[in-house]
């Protein structure tokens, strides 16, 4: 597992934080106040979660007047759904079978 994965997993492992991120994915850009209204935790707690999501590249913030708007950065999830990891495992397995076949084959 790469450090990219570790950071993403660690960041999304917290249910409250994941809830905030999912909401931004579904509903688009939101202010901290709007997110707090539904998060079930205090505004400082929501801000802390948003800070960690931002560090992981999962959200972006935009300042407008006194408000900070947050939006989800879906591309940050790319490492998790990257097909190349699955294919690498697939080919490693097939190379094992190839090795077995070569042992059985005549020169």
């Amino acid at each position, binding site marked *: 597992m790469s450090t990219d994965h570790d950071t993403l997993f660690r960041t999304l492992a917290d249910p409250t934080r994941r809830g905030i991120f999912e909401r931004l994915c579904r509903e688009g850009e939101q202010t901290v106040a709007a997110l707090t209204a539904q998060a079930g935790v205090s505004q400082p707690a929501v801000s802390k979660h948003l800070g960690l999501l931002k560090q992981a590249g999962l959200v972006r913030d935009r300042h407008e007047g006194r408000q900070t708007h947050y939006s989800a950065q879906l591309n940050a999830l790319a490492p998790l759904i990257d097909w190349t990891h699955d*294919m690498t495992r697939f080919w490693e397995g097939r190379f094992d079978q190839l090795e077995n076949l070569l042992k059985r084959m005549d020169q």
Partner: protein
Amino acid sequence: MNQAATETRSAIVEREFPYPPEKLWRALTQPHLIEEWLMKNDFKPVVGHRFNLRGEWGGVLDCEVLAIEPNKELSYTWNFKHDDAAFNLQSVVTFTLTPTSNGTHLRMEQSGFRPDQRQAFGGAQAGWQQFFGKLDQLLARED
């Protein structure tokens, strides 16, 4: 959203085998041998030949031979069409054989992209729930 979601990616697997390139070449290009380590197939070592690889899970890959250089390089397309756009894949598999003092170094590079990955990214709520469900399973395995 930017282009990163659709950019080409590669999977690379390399291994050294204690056999000459000619022997590996047979395993890579003779249908009954390909079947033994990879999948059922109607492969022919002819550029432009279209064939299928049939997986034991029922999946069928559409392939076309792109390049052949006996005992050195073999390349074919590896395309997978699936009802769920998130599983579609357009890719090219290239095997490169290099003789070594002990045998042959085999390098497999599969490069390509999922054409509908953007749609998959922007998926509906159901898609996200499914994704996060999978993430939960992954997290459970990570512990």
